[in-house]
């Protein structure tokens, strides 16, 4: 603790769990937008990861409320947010927006996999066959016409899903941006900053996993896809970081009382996590690497290494951004005269171990999904191997 903080501010109310919540919803929104770039806007270069992005969005979406539930003082009353919502509160919309988005993503995935599930159903027997029929909601027809309808539904849902994804995540930014009591949060730009950083984290996680999984499983990798991801990542990270810096710059230039306290926060408590790590190492680093990769004619292997490192750094950058917003805003006392401290415990209910588990589970679930419906090039590899044998 430094200076004077109001006695009730000694304890930080929103912990690392509330850092994870916008991080995970950001991954959801970003991954969904990448999948829509293919399904809706027809960017063919993204085809190899389109299904993976859609499923990733859904899996992350399933786990987005988990840190919130762990944080609530009375989690058994969580449904009150939909039973007795106070519509004057920005937070009351969470349940509804989340549910609408979950339904959209679920049905987009369902229509996307319906054809494959019908094929599996035809070959299956016994209980597996019954379960598959149940999953298909009894819809076991498959012909050219049904395939066309499925594709049309996927496109339609992707179209509806984009604004909902932006609302879901922009709304998370608004939750913070609308708190007038907090000088670090209160800005109308907050929801736009959150949307941009969400897209960055979504593209980064897909790039990272695509490169990691194809490397681990020795699967063929599409260079065209990697190049497209690299360009998208570069463009969106420039947007995200510029917006964030412009916000700080305008507050600094205005020289109001707000800047007097934020200057202390940025130069003090947040210097290492914000200035050193978020801005210099994890923003400037990937910016330079991605610029080199996009503008220079680098050897392919080096260019792909640059992309992999950039994706990893940007994943950390967005996590740090969430930390610096959520925790940073609470370190600053509303007395404008001091700062409190926060470091999560290792084994606390809302500590580092639990946070680690919550963030890892979606990846494990993705791994299981991959076993049932392989994401990357394995079919091509198998057919290529089959052709070679023949």
């Amino acid at each position, binding site marked *: 603790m430094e200076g004077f903080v*109001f006695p009730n501010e000694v304890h930080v109310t929103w912990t690392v769990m509330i850092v994870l919540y916008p991080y995970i919803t950001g991954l959801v929104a970003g991954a969904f937008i990448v999948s829509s770039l293919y399904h809706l806007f027809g960017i063919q270069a993204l085809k190899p990861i389109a299904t993976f992005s859609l499923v990733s969005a859904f899996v992350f979406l399933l786990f987005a409320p988990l840190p919130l539930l762990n944080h609530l*003082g009375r989690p058994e009353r969580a449904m009150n947010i939909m039973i007795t919502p106070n519509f004057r509160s920005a937070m009351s919309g969470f349940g509804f927006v989340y549910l609408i988005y979950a339904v959209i993503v679920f049905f987009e995935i369902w229509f996307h996999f319906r054809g494959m599930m019908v094929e599996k159903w035809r070959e299956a027997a016994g209980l597996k066959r019954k379960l598959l029929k149940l999953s298909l909601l009894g819809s076991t027809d498959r012909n050219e016409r049904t395939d066309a309808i499925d594709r049309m539904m996927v496109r339609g849902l992707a179209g509806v899903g984009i604004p909902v994804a932006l609302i879901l995540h922009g709304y998370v930014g608004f939750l913070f941006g609308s708190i007038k009591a907090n000088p670090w949060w209160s800005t109308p730009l907050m929801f736009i900053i959150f949307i941009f950083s969400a897209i960055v984290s979504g593209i980064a996680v897909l790039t990272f996993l695509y490169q990691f999984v194809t490397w681990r499983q020795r699967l063929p990798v599409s260079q065209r896809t990697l190049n497209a991801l690299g360009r998208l990542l570069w463009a969106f990270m420039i947007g995200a970081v510029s917006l964030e810096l412009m916000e700080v710059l305008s507050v600094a230039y205005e020289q109001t009382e707000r800047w007097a306290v934020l200057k202390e926060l940025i130069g003090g408590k947040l210097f290492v996590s914000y200035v050193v790590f978020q801005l210099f190492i994890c923003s400037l680093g990937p910016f330079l690497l991605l610029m080199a990769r996009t503008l220079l004619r680098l050897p392919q292997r080096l260019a792909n290494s640059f992309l992999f490192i950039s994706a990893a750094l940007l994943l950390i950058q967005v996590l740090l951004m969430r930390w610096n917003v959520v925790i940073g805003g609470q370190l600053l006392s509303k007395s404008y005269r001091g700062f409190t401290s926060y470091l999560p415990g290792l084994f606390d209910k809302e500590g580092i171990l639990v946070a680690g588990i919550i963030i890892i589970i979606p990846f494990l679930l993705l791994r299981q999904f991959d076993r049932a419906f392989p994401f990357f090039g394995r079919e091509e590899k198998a057919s290529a191997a089959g052709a070679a044998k023949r």
Partner: protein
Amino acid sequence: MGDNTDLNRRRFIQLALAGATGAFVGTLTAFGAPGEKPELRSMQDLSKLEWGFLVDTTRCIGCGSCVRACSAENDVPDSFYRTWVERYEIDKDHEVHVDSPQGAIESFKTDQCEKQRLAKGFFVPKLCNHCRASACTQVCPVGASFHSPDGVVLIDRSRCVGCGYCVQACPYGCRYIDHDIGTADKCTLCYHRLHRDLTTACATACPRQARICGDLRAPDSPLRRVLDQRRYGLLKPEMGTDPKCYYLGLDLEVK
């Protein structure tokens, strides 16, 4: 000697029985009797009231009686405060030193700056401002934070989910999460006392009458009379929360 011992023993048993019976009857009386019930007022009658609060910073001596009284009256959890007292000391170099050790529940035991260097010093008691346009009730996602018809900001503990959004929204640092029950908590303006025609515990305990609670709509209430005669200030009026806790002798340094 033996008779004496028997007598003493008999006497002891008699006293013990009488004592036990007394304690039993006393307990029944204390916990079983209905006591004085608060008068139930209709919504219409409540709406005629508007509770407000006045803090005269020029009278506060920083003794911390108010903080102790509030803590005892409302069973406030350790290390959280429904009310607290801040000490401001401005030295001859115009440096401002502010503190409130444990909310000043044990008053102020050490000086922040040397007496010779002190230019100005004063105490500022703080509590929930029971704002008319309260940010905390606005952000509560489940409607658990609400305005009573007589203008007090309260929390329905049976509905609060403990999300902490109200804690973030309050510009004055008046709210906290009571981790024992998992819900938000704050000053209720001793609502349970107000409706027994008692004033708040903090105002009762203040030896200097630095705190006055009253009905802002009653023209002859002590609170209204002071507000009509004296100049007062509000905390963070720029927040647009329209607070109902008025301060006499408020210094610019107080946030």
